[in-house]
């Protein structure tokens, strides 16, 4: 029923996963009911928790694993992969912070 769905993503943008991308990830993740985590090496963050996402300290080019389990896991992972691949577009380019 709740087999985990995973996908690998790479951090875009020279600024890495700073506050704007982390906020966007948390917002996007909150639209789903499944559990979603983002993992960098041995550190795992709840994708809805900005503190944990920022705590990854993921710089540009870092490989991350996005993992979800629950009823809408596939959609959630696909949606987050889209977000990474868009380069957090529509927001990231507006901020140099």
């Amino acid at each position: 029923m709740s087999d985990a769905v995973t996908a690998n993503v790479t951090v875009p943008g020279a600024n890495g996963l700073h506050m704007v991308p982390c906020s966007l990830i948390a917002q996007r993740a909150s639209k789903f009911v499944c559990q979603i985590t983002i993992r960098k090496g041995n550190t795992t963050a709840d994708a809805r928790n900005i503190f944990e996402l920022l705590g990854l300290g993921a710089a540009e080019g870092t490989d991350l694993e996005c993992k979800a389990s629950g009823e809408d896991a596939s959609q959630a992972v696909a949606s987050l992969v889209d977000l990474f691949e868009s380069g957090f577009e529509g927001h990231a380019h507006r901020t140099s912070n």
Partner: protein
Amino acid sequence: MKLNEFVVADAIVPDLQAASKEDAIRVMVASLKSSGAIPEADEEGIVAAILKREELGSTGIGNGVAVPHTKHPSVDRLVATVGLSKAGVDFASLDGEDVFILFLLVSPPDRPGDHLRGLENISRHLRDQTFCSFLRQSSTKQDIIDLLDEADGNQPSK
């Protein structure tokens, strides 16, 4: 990167009196200026840049915490200060709650890695409820410095 490597001890505001988000940012930037961490001539520019960043989305990220920040060419290394508001400040936070703990960061534009490591470090500590609770109970600069030292894994330095 440790907290006490970029938090400017002299610029800490243990009893932040601010009626609004803009007030809070102004007081904290002024404190960085008074401590010599940023040039006086750039104070207004830094305040404006931080306010502009807030327009993109509040840096009030929940748990009573806000991390207003900007990049600015007037600094050649990441500098930050801490402000504690007893009354709470309406920061238009993501969770709708007032903020009581503020970390304000100014970083050089050409060093995104430092900015990210600063945010990483602060976030790791601020997701710890015990740390937040002790921080909110701090009433002097020294209390806060000791707490940051402890969080950094150091013995409090006297």
